């Protein structure tokens, strides 16, 4: 066990994989000498060389497309988007080339795309996005979103060893704020949900940065026993764990940071409304960012992003239902 930040855990997983498997390769803008915009690959070039920790041209479509090419001839590329928002520029290669490859022709594309995502620090409309729902809607792409240092490492190990394209949603706001014990060495975290706190009166279903928000918001709700389910993986989605929580708690609040419409939370709520209906003792309440670009100015951003207060309020109301 070592105590690491969420960011250190990501670096550690990358370093371990580069050491363990010569097929692993890191590609991205400024990931080399500079160590990446968030310093996740700081010092990597010294140990692994600039060919395995490759500074690419400023070209997201090329980063994804070239990674697909490298993957189908036997490498294990890990691509870094400087910010998750920029995947919009490589979207076609990701969903049409990488995502549909195996179904169409049985050709595996072992590829990881790291997406520093989310808001909370005045990043504004283009440095705060949470694009995971776009990938969830595109068949053939796995999507994981850790909320703890341990899961950041374990999910990244599993993602790199997965024979499929995996979008690794790493929340920028957790990079240095989240610390935790992380087992030594390589370990793989399964793409399943995790009960962050067991409870029986209500369950908050969330992932990524919203897990801490949910834990804090429900730490003391007039003594109510509130479960917090950390999805960890969005594709595959752990339907069994979700429905199990629902059956035990009967009341559900679904929280995600992305814009509300057609978000991951919409899928979770729809799933529950169809397969968990009989267990429900109240409406499936959602908390998410309203459908606006994430504004830059602190008061505006705070008014848009789901925070502790909004989650508290949603839970209180539903508990009183």
């Amino acid at each position: 066990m070592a105590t690491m930040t969420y960011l250190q855990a990501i670096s550690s997983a990358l370093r371990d994989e580069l050491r363990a498997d010569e097929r692993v390769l890191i590609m991205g803008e400024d990931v080399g000498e500079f160590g990446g915009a968030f310093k996740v690959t700081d010092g990597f070039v010294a140990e692994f060389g600039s060919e395995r920790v490759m500074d690419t041209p400023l070209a997201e479509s090329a980063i994804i497309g070239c990674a697909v090419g490298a993957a189908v001839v036997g490498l294990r590329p890990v691509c870094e988007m400087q910010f998750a928002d920029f995947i919009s520029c490589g979207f076609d290669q990701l969903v049409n080339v990488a995502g549909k490859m195996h179904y169409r022709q049985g050709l595996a594309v072992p590829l990881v795309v790291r997406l520093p995502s989310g808001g909370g620090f005045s990043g504004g409309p283009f440095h705060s996005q949470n694009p995971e729902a776009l990938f969830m809607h595109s068949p053939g792409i796995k999507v994981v979103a850790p909320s703890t240092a341990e899961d950041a490492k374990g999910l990244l190990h599993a993602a790199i060893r997965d024979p499929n394209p995996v979008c690794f949603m790493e929340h920028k706001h957790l990079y240095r704020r989240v610390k935790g014990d992380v087992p030594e060495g390589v370990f793989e975290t399964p793409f399943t949900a995790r009960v962050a706190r067991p409870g029986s009166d209500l369950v908050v279903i969330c992932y990524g940065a919203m897990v801490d928000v949910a834990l804090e918001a429900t730490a003391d709700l007039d003594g109510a026993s509130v479960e917090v389910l950390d999805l960890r993986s969005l594709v595959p989605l752990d339907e069994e764990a979700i429905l199990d929580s629902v059956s035990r708690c009967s009341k559900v609040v679904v929280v995600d940071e992305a814009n509300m419409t057609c978000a991951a939370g919409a899928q979770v709520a729809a799933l529950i409304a169809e397969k968990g209906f009989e267990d429900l003792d109240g409406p499936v309440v959602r908390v998410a960012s309203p459908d606006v670009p994430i504004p830059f100015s602190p008061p505006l951003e705070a008014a848009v992003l789901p925070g502790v207060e909004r989650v508290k309020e949603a839970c209180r109301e539903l508990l009183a239902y």
Partner: protein
Amino acid sequence: MATDIAAPASVEVGEHEHLQLADRIWLHRAMLLMRGIEERAMSLYRQGKVPGSFYDGFGQEAVSAGAAFAMAAEDRLCILHRDLAAHVIRGVPPARIFAQYMGRAAGVTAGRDGNVHFGDRHLGCVGMVSMLPDMMLVATGMAMAFRLRGEPRCALTWFGDGSTSRGDFHEAMNWAGVQKLPVVFVLENNQYAYSTPLDKQFAVDPVERAAAYGFAGVTVDGNDVEAMFDATREARSRAVSGGGPTLIEAVTMRMHGHAAHDDMKYVPKEQVAEWKLRDPVDRQEKRLRALGVDVDELRAGVTAEIDAAAAEALSGPMPSVEGVLEGVFCEGEAEPLGDGHAPWSGFGSGGAA
């Protein structure tokens, strides 16, 4: 640099420096198979046996045949929608091609993808996606992997004149140029992008761009299969010896509509007539006759092969719907692309043939 015209095809009669007679016959056979398979597939389409739409490469056979013939077994290809001869050369049996067109179980994609959207991963080919020219980046990435591993291998892809307008063309050309990668880009200039003529697609012939990306650009008579072979062989040896990418512009003509439904009213009759005189199959046939080859026998053999293949495919089942939801993800180990056939005598054994 950008406009060196590749050496003209060796004179009609007489030896070829790199092609033995058997090779030259192989090239012709590949073109005959492409033309024959596509003509048969078109009539199957008219009979309603080929679902969706149907695209062919009539008049462009030399481009895929000549280029693919220069590729080694361990090289990797992204084959496009006018390039059937490349599949034939890499070793895809005609019956599987017919089955592919008809969406049958025995097709290369077992009915999951359509018509020309296929590539046999066991033969070193990645099936194209519709979005053009996305495969340029996949080819560039394969070449990047070869370079990183220090392997003397090459990646090649084809793409059309119209698709050069898209951003991925640029991202691939730039990346390949910056990293000096062993990749060959074959620009198939068939004068049209669907109905759109070249002058609405670019102001300057794209081969001119190669120099601006720091690598070689050559223009080739795309209707001369041996010239295509020569240019590609040179590009490949440049690539595997660390000389970087090459952009080959194969000048040719799309002699049929964009797809089966297209009457190509927008193409001047004279243009078609003029290009008819440069038919790549006739051209190679003349060459072979002059070399004393019994071309009629060759044709007869190819026709028989196509008859048998079509019959086999027609007798095969449609895919079963069980398992239609499976295979979105790879469950086992990721298995990289395998080697393809490489019949050129220059590769000795003929590679994995």
